[in-house]
């Protein structure tokens, strides 16, 4: 087992390096980071542009920029004052040592910029994942047990619809009903933007209240999909012999479901949840945009538009690492769930 994990981790490293190289080249060509310095109201004077290009390291070829991004430049001399002669050592340590560089837009460490936002996204995603898990399980299992009942058919139909909706369309509908119209009708309405009301401050209550609509729109689509999946998995398992045997033995239904059926249906569920991470992050971009949630997805979008290489690459690297780790964790969870699966 440990050997397997080690091997996967080792294999992941060249993988991540290649990904980062491809992405770096991609991101470096998104436009001119200096174009919008000064906002759209004041263009950068030429001498300053030259100086800033040099200071941000943008005058070097892309490959050199990548190498510096990866391993830093404090081991080599760079030209600080623009006369063409390298005179002082650089200050960057490179990603491999944990230095993602300074954000072009905000002139402070990219890690700080990302770090401030990443927790908000994680909060959103965790809340969403939890809601998805609970509800898809409940709905899926219930549907499976009451197959072909009116309830089941309604849920199936609704699931199809829910599954086919673009997340942001759902968000718009939810906002329209629960924020705009609730307010019009004098009902307590849900807030549209932000994580909390400024005057009240970031209390738990505030954050949960502001989480409701974003989590609802993100999770309904997933719940629709997964509940159907769980339903079909459960159906397959329920019709197996060993389940019938369990019933025949006189075990109560709950024990049959939870102890026997569910465990076997859960295996693919783990894969799905494990693979869901990237999808959730993607959905988060749009949801954060609509609801003004100060998270990483929004930051990514802003940074990509501003061609802010350190921040964009930082986010992509973090995501890639997270996903790789998640996949390995998923595989390991498999072995606990299904003793038939063993890795060398």
């Amino acid at each position, binding site marked *: 087992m440990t050997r397997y994990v080690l091997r996967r981790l080792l294999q992941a490293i060249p993988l991540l390096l290649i990904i980062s190289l491809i992405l770096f080249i991609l991101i470096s060509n*998104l*436009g*001119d*980071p*200096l*174009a*919008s*310095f*000064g*906002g*759209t*109201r*004041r*263009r950068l*004077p*030429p*001498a*300053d*542009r030259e*100086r800033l290009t040099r*200071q941000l390291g943008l005058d070097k070829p892309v490959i050199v920029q990548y190498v510096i991004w990866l391993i830093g430049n404090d081991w080599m001399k760079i030209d*600080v004052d623009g006369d063409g002669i390298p005179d002082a050592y650089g200050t960057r340590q490179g990603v491999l040592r944990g230095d993602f560089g*300074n954000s072009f*837009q*905000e*002139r402070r460490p990219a890690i700080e*910029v990302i770090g*401030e*936002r990443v927790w908000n996204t994680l909060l959103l995603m965790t809340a969403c994942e*939890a809601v998805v898990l*609970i509800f898809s*399980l409940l709905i899926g299992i219930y549907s499976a047990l009451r197959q072909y009942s009116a309830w089941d058919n309604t849920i199936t139909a609704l699931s199809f619809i829910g599954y086919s909706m673009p997340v942001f369309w759902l968000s718009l509908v939810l906002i329209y009903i629960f924020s705009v119209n609730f307010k019009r009708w004098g009902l307590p309405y*849900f807030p*549209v*933007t*932000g*994580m909390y*009301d*400024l*005057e*009240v401050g970031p*209390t*738990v*209550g*505030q954050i*949960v*209240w502001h989480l409701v609509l974003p989590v609802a729109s993100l999770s309904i689509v997933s719940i629709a999909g997964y509940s159907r999946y769980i339903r079909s998995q459960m159906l397959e398992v329920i019709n197996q012999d060993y389940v019938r045997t369990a019933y025949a033995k006189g075990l109560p239904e*709950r*024990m049959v479901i*939870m102890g026997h059926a*569910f465990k076997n249906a859960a295996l693919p569920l783990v894969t799905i949840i494990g693979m869901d991470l990237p999808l959730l992050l993607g959905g988060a971009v749009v949801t954060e*945009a609509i609801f003004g949630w*100060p998270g990483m997805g*929004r*930051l990514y979008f*802003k940074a990509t*538009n*501003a*061609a802010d290489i350190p921040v964009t690459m930082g986010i992509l690297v973090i995501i890639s690492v997270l996903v790789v780790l998640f996949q390995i964790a998923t595989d390991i969870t498999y072995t*606990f769930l299904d003793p038939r699966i063993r890795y060398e």
Partner: protein
Amino acid sequence: MCTKKIGCVTISLLIVSSLMLAGCGGTTTPTTTAPVAEEPTTGEMATQAPATQEPATPAPTEAARPKSITMTFVGGDPESLNPIYAYSWTAECVFDLSLASLWNIDNDGNYVMDLAEELPTVENGGVSEDGLVITIRLTPDVTWSDGTPLTAHDAVFTYDMIMDEGNSSYSRYPWDTYVESITAVDDHTLQIKMTAPYADWSTSLFVGISRIIPQHILEPVFEAEGTLDNAEWNRLPSVGSGPFMLTEFEPASHIIFKANERYWRGRPHLDEIYMRLLEDRAAQIAALAAGESDIGSYIIGSEIPSLKTMEHIEITSSINGYQVVTFLNVDPKTAHPAMTDPLVRRALALALDRQLMIDQLYAGLYQIPVTYWHGTVYDNPDLEPYPYDPEQAKALLDQAGWVDTNGDGVRDKDGVELTLRYKYIGGDETTDTRIASMQQMLADVGIKIDIYAETTEVLWASYDEGGPLATGDYDVTHYSDGLWYFPSPDTSYFLCSEIPTAENPWGYNWYGICIPELDELFAAQAVEINPEKRIEMFYKIGKIMYDETLIIPMYTDPDVWAVNKRLKDVRFSGVDPLMFAWEWDVAE
């Protein structure tokens, strides 16, 4: 993984989450803050300003609840709270609250003294005869918020920091071009020596976005690290010199200001200002509607109709020298052959119904400018905006030889179709719609427009990167632009020498405008100290640009503010937006 555990875990999670939802649904009410105010209070919308210095007003005694207001800004965080690194309008607004400058300029163009005792002129000896030496006397007894005296040495330190190689300051202009040296003759006298008589010194040195930073805090940092780039003070200034102190800065969320007890004009009326930093325009409107925001900033015309329905909101605007201009590529080397003909350009201008666009898309909020210097004394009063006259446009095009010979609806000449590439910064629905309507209007006179919506980084990329505007790879564009040091009129956008080339890739003249007479006039005005003569020169410049239809001004782009009527004595300036914040108050 026992059966009971799964069941219990699931059920308990359910119970917990439903409790939380039920709990928070009841206790926290989404609507907070101010009730809707009924009567407007006196004087709060006035934009007239008394001249020169304001007397210090003692602070009123506080009620039990702190007087706080919320402002909202859209468009992201200030990139730095240290003026030598900042450039955005949001940052400038922050500095209006947290740092003092030498003087401010109000909405009528009057100089209101701040740190300086009076405006140096040739008459009072503040400016030398040849215009090269400027001596400024600072008000004594001004201190930073921690009690340390604010002296001329702080100004010298600021200059040194801007120029030092170790700091990646945003811009060294105009210091590097016009300033020879800055010295502190004594604690309260500052002397600036110029390399040439720079006509716009009073709107660019230590004023506007350029502010004085505290030497006693930052010099030790600079000496220890060799740079100010990573100073703590850049993110959270521990001391300031403006009417309010920054006490909290949460990126992508908010900034909290508290009244500066030691402000030299006396403590401001308000106790706190919450500045919310939003990324989304709709969020600001929602906040204004709900009373969650007292002051909304930079409102755009398309938001006016919904704001007008809000009874507790008042709308005010200040001229800031910016206007949305349709720029044309007239560089013979890269332009469409039709664009080098002034008749065609004039036809373009006549075919556009600007008033319709303003009325329909921007609630009639903006005006149609004639010259680039609209809103200043340099605007030529004899010129009228181009009228909307599509028939005349068609006649001009016929006269210029562009007729539709092949019946495809688009005029042509010598085998070249009159199809123009319109490249602009997309992303805003109203702008996209406006361009679509312009496309329609021009199609009606036989000119085809191909629309390309880009992002800033792509469109404004530099010459070396092949940026479309910089390399002349476009025919028509537009953006909001103005005078850098409004109300000073100087600009280098229309000089021949500023056309980007391989030798000079950073030139500003993306339009390819090259008229020797214009160049002469611009060169002369930059060093013309006599105000009347300077005005005459700009009248001539305006006329030339108008006759040749070199640019088509579309509409003014003022600062528009939405203010909750529960506030009083709130006024703004187009130059230094929040300069009167120390006067603002809440009506009881």
